[in-house]
């Protein structure tokens, strides 16, 4: 079984982002970038499945500018076998990314495609589901547990009401939750080894898909700030404030 894992380069989750003064977007210059956190879980799960002898190859793919390749390199350092970098400038919408991934799936013919359930920059939560639709494959979204059984997967999904378990036939798409596993760190020798693993570079423009923007970003602004609160001295004061000042209890 071959697993394709899609990873995205985003502003690191620990960075307090800043809105550009002209309202055109978010400041990304000289800001720490990392792999989108649940994409790390997707890579980890694919590597674990391979280590358990249930997959033969793990291919990491990213779609993005020159530097996005770092995320593929990182995936190689934690166990992916080879990488694909679809090069494109600018920000793509999830629909465009899923069309690119569809082309790659047609070529690579993986049995499974994994990715994070949502990217923490645009918070769209769309790409996996869209790719499933384009391929007409089953989709297991928000996965917190995956059992590989021959040509089937049993997947536990985190839903608002609790947990749901579904069984999907391969080929299939799985989008991963942060609770799926604990991503490993790359060891130094593995980072060195990863430098020798191949990354195929493909120009998005060579794939013949429509990746034009359908959505215009008119303005990005800071959310309204909360006005500063106070510290109370003790519990009695807190309860008195909630009762008589805020009038919420």
């Amino acid at each position, binding site marked *: 079984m071959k697993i394709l894992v899609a990873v995205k380069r985003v502003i690191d989750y620990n960075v*307090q*982002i800043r*809105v550009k003064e002209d309202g055109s977007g*978010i400041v990304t210059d000289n800001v720490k970038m990392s792999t989108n956190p649940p994409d790390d879980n997707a890579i980890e799960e694919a590597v674990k499945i391979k280590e358990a002898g249930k997959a033969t190859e793990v291919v990491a793919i990213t779609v993005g500018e020159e530097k996005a390749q770092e995320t593929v390199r990182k995936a190689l350092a934690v166990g992916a076998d080879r990488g694909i970098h679809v090069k494109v400038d600018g920000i793509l*919408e*999830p*629909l465009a990314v899923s069309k690119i991934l569809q082309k790659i799936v047609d070529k690579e013919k993986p049995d499974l495609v994994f990715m994070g359930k949502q990217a*923490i*920059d*645009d*918070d*769209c*939560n*769309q*790409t996996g*589901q*869209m790719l499933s*639709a*384009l391929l007409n494959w*089953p*989709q297991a*979204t*928000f996965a*917190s547990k995956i059992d590989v059984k021959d040509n089937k997967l049993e997947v536990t*999904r*985190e*839903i*608002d*009401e*609790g*947990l*749901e*378990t*579904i*069984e*999907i*036939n391969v080929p299939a798409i799985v989008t991963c*939750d*942060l609770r799926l596993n604990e991503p490993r760190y790359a060891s130094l020798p593995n980072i060195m080894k990863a430098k020798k693993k191949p990354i195929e570079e493909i120009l998005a423009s060579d794939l013949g898909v429509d990746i034009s*923007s*359908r*959505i*215009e970003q008119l*303005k*990005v*602004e800071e*959310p309204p700030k*909360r006005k500063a*609160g*106070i*510290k*109370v001295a*003790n*519990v*009695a004061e*807190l*309860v008195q404030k909630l009762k008589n000042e*805020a009038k*919420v*209890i």
Partner: protein
Amino acid sequence: MAVLLIAEHNNKELRPFTLNAAAAASQIDSDVHAVIIGQNTAEAAKQLSGLSVVKKVLSVEAAHYENFTAENFAPVIVKLAENYSHIICSANTFGKNLMPRIAAYLDTSQVSDIIKVISPDTFLRPIYAGNAFATIKSNDNKKCVTIRPTSFDPCESTGGSASIEKVEASEEFSNTKFVKREEIKSDRPELGTARIVVSGGRGMQSGDNFKLITEIADKLGAAIGASRAAVDAGYISNDHQVGQTGKVVVPDLYIAIGISGAIQHLAGMKESKVIVAINKDGEAPIFSVADYGLEADLFEAIPQFMEELNKLNTIQK
């Protein structure tokens, strides 16, 4: 052209956020039609037809719709979409799972999780865990939009008298099988709609200690929330998680106990009307959004909090 709302329900009755999504839909266009897909949904369909803003109900029933599988739902909606300018659904796990599948079939770039309708093609949505708001305009002919339910007041549950029209079911998608659902039943208010939420974080130190949170929640008639750290540590189940990848809550009162306030958690609760933080680390970022902060050891503060609540003659429910 009318807008099509996808109702969320449990086959027996509507889920409450359908009313919020209906209200958002009516801000886009007053001609709101609603589709309900499921099995044995007659009662829920009737409820839907009574919503103040709904003009027409489309009902699709088949055994393979019983468990809300997106692969089964999407083709029906795609077929209906022909007659509508917008497809609308709540941005909870039901809508998040389903809508992108519809959007891709329609070759539409979805607009996720809007918090405001500016015009029928322009919307406000949070990005970067709510640390920025983007105003975006969709140029697709057909628009697929998911709405953040807590950002819209629900429509009236009565006053409507929409007709209910049957629609033919689509074929079953055979490569996805539902196995089971483990729903955590509780007599407490739902986290998403509760007036008061009491949440615990890593500072609780164990699942057992969450009993302290439960007591306060029972006293206040509150729902129980948790930070991702507390869920990851196994103190409490995932359906309680508040934050960027969990639930977004906007209660009148949010009490954060032993929660440091990572930006991912703040994303899920900082729109709450009144925020209380109890934490022994005075520098914890949760205090930056708290209206009332108490720097204290929670294991001393919670029992005292309970004592003080017991002294009150009345507590709002």
